[in-house]
């Protein structure tokens, strides 16, 4: 857990000036007595892009759900803009969420609405904009993800990657101040991947939004983010800026960059002895 303390110093020094939008302090969470998050501390400064990486099942989506206020921590807190998420009432929570966008891991497009209506959904729910302005806004968002031509299709007619891009357009429909992306790059081809990567970066910079990206794609994310947290088994095992991570040559980062199975992070979900399970005898 102290692999990167050295690298941290630099980052903290550089962010002292900018204020934090999201602060996670000693966050613990258990699903039916099984600890999923243990003592997480993270800071997401305003206007920055931060990546959260880690193996499948290490609790990244669970963490995002806490930031969105969809789960209550067992211990600790998530503070956004100075407000503790789990202490807000429904009205306060909804007011906070109107300033957030979340791209779900599997898109979560509304299957009974067309692509156009999916992107227009929040504009219609939350604003009184006239339909022709909504039309223009939707076209701009769809154009940005390269799917203006798919506006009349239903979600069931889209490929996985197209659905994810529509979901991305929907997520940023109202230009949120905090955007969370759960695996924005999964299932995208090389071209879409770098286009979407650029798009996320541009959205972040143009809107002054703060972005949190959960991803497995270390190469793409190191190119675009300002800071990276590595998680394993519910704790943070490493963190730093992309440059620091490239420079800091630990087992940990090597395992990630090269996708080696053996290393400090276990590939296996905690389990009993394999040989015993197969009833093998020596």
């Amino acid at each position, binding site marked *: 857990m102290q692999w990167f303390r050295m690298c941290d110093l630099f980052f903290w020094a550089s962010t002292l000036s900018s204020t934090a939008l999201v602060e996670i302090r000693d966050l613990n969470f258990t699903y039916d007595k099984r600890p999923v998050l243990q003592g997480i501390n993270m800071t997401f400064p305003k206007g920055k892009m931060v990546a959260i990486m880690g193996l499948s099942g290490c609790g990244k989506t669970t963490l995002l759900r806490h930031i969105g206020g*969809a789960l209550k921590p067992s211990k600790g807190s998530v503070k956004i803009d100075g407000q503790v998420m789990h202490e807000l009432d429904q009205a306060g929570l909804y007011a906070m969420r*109107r300033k957030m966008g*979340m791209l*779900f*891991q599997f898109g*979560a*497009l509304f*299957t*009974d609405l067309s692509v156009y209506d999916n992107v227009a*959904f929040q504009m219609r729910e939350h604003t009184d904009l006239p339909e022709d302005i909504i039309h223009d806004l939707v076209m701009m968002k769809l154009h940005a993800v390269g799917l203006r031509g798919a506006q009349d299709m239903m979600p069931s007619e889209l490929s996985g990657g197209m659905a994810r891009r529509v979901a991305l357009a929907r997520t940023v429909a109202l230009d949120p101040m905090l955007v969370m992306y759960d695996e924005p790059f999964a299932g995208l081809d090389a071209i879409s991947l770098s286009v979407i990567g650029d798009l996320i970066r541009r959205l972040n910079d143009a809107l002054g939004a703060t972005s949190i990206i959960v991803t497995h794609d270390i190469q793409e994310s190191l190119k675009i983010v300002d800071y990276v947290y590595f998680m394993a088994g519910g704790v943070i095992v490493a963190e730093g800026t992309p440059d620091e991570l490239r420079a800091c040559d630990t087992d940990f980062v090597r395992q990630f960059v090269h996708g080696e199975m053996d290393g400090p992070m276990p590939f296996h979900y905690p389990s009993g002895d394999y040989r015993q399970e197969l009833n093998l005898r020596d």
Partner: protein
Amino acid sequence: MAAMKTVRAIGHRVVDAVWRMGSATRFFALVLLYSASSFRRFRLVIKELFSSGVMSLIIILVAGLFVGMVLGLQGYETLKRYGSESALGSLVALSLVRELGPVLAALLFASRAGSAMTAEIGLMKATEQISAMEMMAVNPIARIVAPRFWAGVISMPLLAAMFSAVGVFGGYLVGVVQIGVDEGSFWAQMQAAVDFREDILNGVLKSFVFGTVVTVIALFEGYDAQPTAEGVSGATTRTVVNSSLAILMLDFVLTAIMFRGN
């Protein structure tokens, strides 16, 4: 030991059932609480009226026609023994308006529209559409559930009325056109026997109650489903079973209250 186990299992099931009934009631209260927006945006209700009401229309009409025809045949056979075939019209109409219309239409509605509602909402939950909506600060009970609830409550009495109307026509086809009961007395007897308040309003009231119960059960099961394929299929089955039982039990209770002693 085995007896203890059985008792405990029964106890568990009872507690479970009471618990679920409590949650369903709470859910119902929430739906009512968040209904205001459905009326402000009635367009949403109309869309659901189409998918639950209009889509059930064919099955309701066909079933109504056949039930009416069977009533015509059976009623004629029985009435003939007492030489009162001319009462066929009132027998067909009263059976339909008081009982068969509301009950059978509700049973069909539960299996056609209720199961579809449960599956739809359960799948929305399984594919995180409900979570996504909550993350967009849109209340899913107000946006998804309430319009479907009102669509169900509105369409049920209409469907039951159509069931009865088509059923009367089926009885007419068999009784008058095929068997040859006197047409004038068929309609005249019917008109004399069916009372607006006593029969028609009570029938409408019944189907209103059934519509409410079926729709609440269907929506609750969908909203409460485990977000997996098995969870959704189990919930769909429970919708059909529970709402059918609820319809038949409530029908007895309502009939006992409405038609006691006359």
